[in-house]
């Protein structure tokens, strides 16, 4: 079993292709508020676990950093996240970028979705736009998207 074998299994899964590529010009990075959105199904321990085909999202507060991996797929290494949350969710690294002035600020709340989806219509029509609205209401400018 090697990582390349697992990747090869998933490489040909049908994926959504967009006819047009939306593109937003960001404010300067040093003034930007940055949020992380991950497809790793992370959640706080007290929040609802992800169901197998969960198309919703969970809000990840910046504190406490007690994130739990709720992903249903067995097809990734979880020990990296077990050792260091920043392997998947680089919140400490973003704080350091704020301290050195590279980015303006880090959002207080971030989002997690479940990446193990075969039907993306609910995310496209519902939870995706809802997540964007949630982030916009926090005045987020830039989103860093991380998978597992």
């Amino acid at each position, binding site marked *: *079993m*090697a*990582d*390349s*074998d*697992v*990747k090869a299994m998933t*490489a*040909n899964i049908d*994926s*959504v292709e*967009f006819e047009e*590529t939306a*593109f*937003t*010009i*960001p404010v300067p990075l040093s003034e*930007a508020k940055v949020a992380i*959105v991950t497809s790793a199904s992370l959640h706080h321990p007290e929040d609802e*676990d992800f169901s197998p085909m969960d198309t919703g999202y969970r809000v990840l507060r910046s504190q406490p950093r007690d994130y*739990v*991996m*709720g992903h*249903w797929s*067995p*097809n*990734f*290494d*979880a*020990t*990296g*996240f*077990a*050792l*260091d949350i*920043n*392997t*998947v969710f*680089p919140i400490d*690294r*973003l704080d*350091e*970028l704020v301290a050195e002035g590279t980015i303006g600020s880090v959002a207080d709340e971030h989002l997690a979705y479940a990446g193990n989806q075969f039907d*993306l219509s609910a*995310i*496209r029509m519902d939870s*995706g*736009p809802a*997540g*964007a609205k949630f*982030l*916009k209401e926090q005045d987020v*400018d*830039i*989103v*860093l*998207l*991380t*998978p*597992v």
Partner: protein
Amino acid sequence: MSTLAHIFEAEGLATVALGSIKSQIETTAPPRGLWCDFPLGRPLGVPSDQEFQHRVLGAALALLESPEPIFAEYDVSIVDDGTEVMACPMPPRHDPGLHPAVDEANGLRPAYERAISEYGNRVGAGRAVQADDIASAIEAFIRVADGTPWKEAGVPGIPARVSQDIRGYYETAALALSDHAPPAWAGTRWFLDRTEAGKVVMAARQAMADAGEMQPIWFYMAPGDR
């Protein structure tokens, strides 16, 4: 990830998407995509390596300077060749009256608790099975491996989630038994190939497949290439 990138950009948010599978990030073409040839589960590359993670983030954030959609490849690869296995001292046999997998799981409990104390419970037991019930979950899979239909064997949840908790329990315990950060997949290979519980999970999975159970019920009990 890339789908969300398209949606967010359309709503006025600038995005940068990291991707671990080149064909996927190329096909879905997020407005700004950085393919990092890192093992699945480690999009920032190396756990507990602040400098490495900052280099990856720097490359990702640099894409925001592009005036148009952009795809880039990170210039460092981390390749798993499928051979590295965690080296963990295993607990000695304690109760010969128990199945070896159950005895083993019980023996790993102190290491599991040490790891939880150090790192928190990020991937360990608790989704379908609490740590106190890992041994009984293994006993249920032993019955499945011996031919009992899984719905009659006392499996305490969806088999894939129960397997995930057993694997998480073991991989978390292994963190306290190893003196270095494991390479990607080394903990999974250790669990599946070197532990008694891993053998039980794989045997139960095979028994369910042989019994004609629906493929999604047993397939996700282990990585799909197994």
